[in-house]
């Protein structure tokens, strides 16, 4: 089992993600020696993206910028809970030939994170079937890791 105080928080720009960060911040703020990795994973470009004359570099740049805004907001929340900036790292990555949940688990494995924190949207069965639920996929496929699902 990886060190549970090495905590990976998967973030995006949804209210549930911000809720998960606040929840995690309140717990982690009381811990010593916790290390936090904020991770924003985004999908490959949608169909038609390139035909509008834009490039993959444009897409990555756009997503990195969005990720930067999400991280700035998340770092502020974590700092308000007493977590120092030195213990926080960030990473923005495209899910290349993988799903978002598979990419989160790959980062978790590479970085030997013992805890994943993720928000949970309330989705219908039909939505889950078609579009998936990242939190459910993490619970289903995660190994050697504690997963905090914040609904």
């Amino acid at each position, binding site marked *: 089992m990886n060190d549970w105080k090495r905590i990976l928080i998967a973030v995006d720009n949804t209210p549930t993600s911000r809720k998960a960060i606040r929840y995690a911040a309140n717990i982690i703020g009381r811990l010593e020696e916790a290390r936090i990795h904020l991770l924003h994973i985004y999908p490959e470009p949608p169909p038609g993206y390139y035909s509008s004359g834009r490039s993959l570099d444009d897409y990555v740049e756009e997503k990195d910028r969005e990720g930067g805004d999400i991280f700035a907001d998340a770092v502020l929340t974590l700092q308000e809970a007493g977590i120092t900036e030195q213990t926080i790292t960030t990473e923005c990555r495209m899910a290349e030939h993988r799903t978002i*949940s598979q990419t989160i688990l790959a980062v978790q494995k590479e970085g030997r994170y013992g805890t994943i924190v993720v928000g949970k949207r309330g989705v219908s069965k039909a939505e889950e*079937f078609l579009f998936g639920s990242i939190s459910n996929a993490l619970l289903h496929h995660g190994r050697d890791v504690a997963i905090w699902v914040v609904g």
Partner: protein
Amino acid sequence: MAEYTTANSLPPGIAERLRGHRVTRSMRRRSRVFTDTTDFTAIDYGDVIVVDERYFLVVAYTKEGRFGVDEQIKPWVPKVEELATGEKKILKLVFHETFDITLGPFTIPCYRHPEKEARVLELVRGHSHFMQGEAALDGAGNLVRILDIINGSRLDKFIHRSGAPLEEYFHHELPAILTQFLECLQAISFLHSHGFRHGDIRRDHILVERGSGLYRWIDFDYDFYLPERPFALDLYELGNILMYLTVRGNFYPRDIAADPALGRRVLDTIGPGDYSLLSKNRIVNLKKLFPFIPMELNNIFLHFSQGTEVFYETVDELHDDLAAALATMDHGDTGGGR
């Protein structure tokens, strides 16, 4: 305006074959020779398309009908004859199209993806459950797919051939059909294992080859954008085909109400959980309509219902459940409801 040349630009042997061809002999105009298929609408019956130094005479166009809609000509998919060999082929010309499909309250971005179809054709070369063909560039760099013609019938028409009553069909014809369909599932699993979706799984996209009786998938140029569940739509459509094959149709409340053998008595037993997960008005708990359907088979259908608690994650899971259900079908399970 698309550029073309006259038949004088053709090699002498090819030009001679063109002159003697029944299609050109019956034409009032001269054939044109296209090396650039970008504007495929400019190409017409009797014209020649040149791809990779091969010469294809347009002899007809393919048609496609959405169910319940009249068949429409697909100008980007001409039927051709290769002038050097006399072999009949289908060409698929590049047609970039992006659109949304609607499933219940959801929209899914879909698009035509010629490169993907070319890669799939390469992957499935020699695989007996897929159409065969190759891709080559025309003079303007368009990726033209040159497809072998499958001589056979659409699966959704094939299953109606005998005209047997449904229960008789179910017991005597369906097991053989599902045995073949299992191989179709394995074929799609093969695609998925290589990271490809079929992209347009429909009951008329399986052809039953005359002679061999093989079921073969056709048309791979659609793709869709579902980043977290990349194969979900293929899976959903496989479930739809399976249900269609089982009862030779789709069933909606109005059909049941109008059927003297079913009527209100059966319709009143249908609850919200018995309907399709994504086509809200279609009944998938088919055992309530046709009690002769074995529980094992019906349980597969219920994975695609609004009442389901579990989904199929992979085609292999669906395949294995169907193989198990098929093994029970000879026993004539006529047990109760869900």
